[in-house]
């Protein structure tokens, strides 16, 4: 694993200024890594910091944000000097499909011209060669190259999403960050897009971070996943292990809250609400909602501990004797 690590995120923090001297600690020191060609899922509920995390990797945060931590791309810290060090890598090495990107096309410009635009801005190619590249990109995502001259309204939702993916691929990135790429789509179109993303990562050797709230999507697409809660990573591991042997109650309860087509087990909601991130909290952030919390959880913040190689979880239950795991 170590030699193939493409992207390493170490102790990433993101704060947002809320005004009146208040701060929102959106990402609270998360670490994970991504191997070449790997598909990693970043799962969590709204407000858990998953989108903020990948925006930070792209160096795309609003002015109210401040960041700390290291993001190593092939061993080079791309966040070291802020914008100065991120800019050369943005789109070239790390590209992103934004949430709702399919609805962000300019209605009065052709899709082809909009895909060519970033290439021209980045001075990769222009004019005739750019259009040739656009056609190539469209073919790559399963759209006939002859449709480059069409306008967004002539594309269906699924095709616009494909075009948005094509746009991200324009500069041959090594890492693709996909933020909820299938959320607004129907199941059938979702299946088509997921199939495309899997095929792209397999064929191009692209590594992908798939950000979603949808556990089954991650289970089917990603080999490994990180479960985020309240700006922290609760558990990271192979998706199979997360499902069959979760070591954080949140992971287990999140799976239990997701109905399965054939599952007969009761679907259980998680009581309570996530903590506010604009104030510091003591202890485990999940403790108030946890069904297995005990005295230690309220006062002591659990650290990520390795359970097996490649499987870490932040739960005090894992410190208890082996006979009583966290499930």
């Amino acid at each position: 694993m170590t030699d193939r690590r493409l992207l390493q995120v170490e102790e990433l923090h993101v704060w947002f200024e809320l005004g009146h001297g208040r701060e929102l600690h959106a990402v609270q020191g998360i670490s994970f890594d991504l191997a070449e060609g790997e598909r990693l899922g970043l799962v969590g509920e709204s407000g858990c910091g998953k989108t903020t995390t990948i925006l930070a990797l792209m160096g795309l945060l609003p002015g109210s944000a401040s960041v700390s931590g290291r993001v190593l791309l092939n061993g080079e810290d791309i966040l070291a000097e802020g914008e100065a060090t991120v800019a050369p890598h943005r789109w070239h090495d790390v590209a992103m499909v934004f949430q709702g990107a399919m609805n962000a096309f300019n209605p009065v410009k052709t899709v082809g011209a909009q895909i060519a635009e970033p290439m021209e801005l980045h001075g990769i190619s222009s004019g005739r060669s750019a259009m040739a590249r656009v056609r190539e990109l469209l073919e790559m995502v399963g759209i006939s190259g002859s449709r480059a001259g069409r306008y967004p309204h002539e594309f269906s939702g699924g095709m616009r999403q494909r075009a948005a993916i094509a746009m991200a691929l324009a500069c041959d990135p090594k890492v693709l960050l996909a933020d909820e790429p299938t959320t607004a789509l129907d199941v059938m179109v979702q299946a088509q897009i997921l199939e495309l993303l899997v095929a792209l990562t397999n064929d191009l050797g692209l590594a992908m971070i798939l950000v979603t709230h949808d556990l089954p999507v991650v289970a089917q697409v990603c080999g490994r996943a990180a479960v985020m809660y309240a700006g922290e990573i609760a558990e990271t591991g192979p998706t199979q292990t997360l499902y069959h042997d979760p070591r954080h109650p949140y992971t287990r309860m999140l799976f239990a809250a997701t109905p399965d087509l054939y599952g007969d087990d009761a679907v259980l909601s998680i009581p309570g609400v996530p903590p506010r991130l604009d104030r510091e909290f003591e202890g485990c952030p999940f403790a108030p909602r946890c069904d297995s919390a005990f005295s230690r959880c309220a006062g002591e913040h659990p650290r990520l501990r390795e359970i097996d190689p490649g499987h870490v979880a932040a739960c005090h239950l894992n410190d208890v004797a082996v006979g009583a795991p966290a499930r």
Partner: protein
Amino acid sequence: MTGGEPLLEVDGLVTRYPVPRGIVRTLARAPREHVHAVEGVSFTVGPGEMLALVGESGCGKTTTAQTVMRMVTEDAGSIRFRGREISTLSHRGLRPLRREMQIIYQDPYESLDPRFRVRDTVMEPLRIHSIGSSADREQKVLDALVRAGLTPPDLYIDRFAHELSGGQRQRVAIAAALVLEPKLLVADEPVSMLDVSVRAGILALLDGLRRSGLGILMITHDLSTAAHFADRIAVMYLGRIVEEGPAKDVVRNPQHPYTKALISVVPKRDPRDTMKPQILKGETPNPVHVPSGCRFHPRCPVAVESCTSVDPELRRVKAATSPEHRAACILV
């Protein structure tokens, strides 16, 4: 599970929206085109029963719900509520019936007036129908909040919508629906805008209401949810019900090729459970120009010659384990 006479009987419902023609086509007297949103849909919902209308966007499931609620006027067919035809009733004649059928919307961030406190939102139906004295109303509001799982109600009653989480807002919307003690609840994608961890709570609440005798028509795109909570599932495609039956039968023994494909692409929770998804090409066609014959034939993996001309009706499935399991395909 169905007890006695059905609450809601919908028969041969047709709803079309005219497509705006623009001035040139109007002057040229181009034929007026229609969006065939709902094209002959029939179903029933009994007391204490939950029927899930499942389908992709544009299949007509939401229009069906809106037509049932008489928010949209149908072009043909009948809607009978507790044995009484309501499609011909006037706005005024409908008013007493509005108390008995309530709708819950998809987006709890949109469906509550931002200037209303929880009390005003839940009390509004009582005000509209001039029910009870103000003391009665206050009590009814508190009861409805408790029934919707917002306990203690005092904690919530003076809040504005923006002070509540998505799940809590949806519960307020449900409380506002329950305060009139309806017989039928139409739930239009009640959980799709909510976080995974609170969805189950809302669905369990609806399930509890169903057990207490309410009939529920749930509109959803999520087959997993439907499989878990509904008694029966009706799968819609392009304005038609293509398959209908007990939830377990439809999910475990799908007959219509569309249902089969739809079920195969639902992602499973278990990463090891990798069924080969049967991905259909393209997307649902535009409901303005509906294909001839079976409306699914252009995308159907098993279509035969006669599918282009024969428009199949819903009928009993030969391979079915339940007599109520029906599908609209000439091959089953």
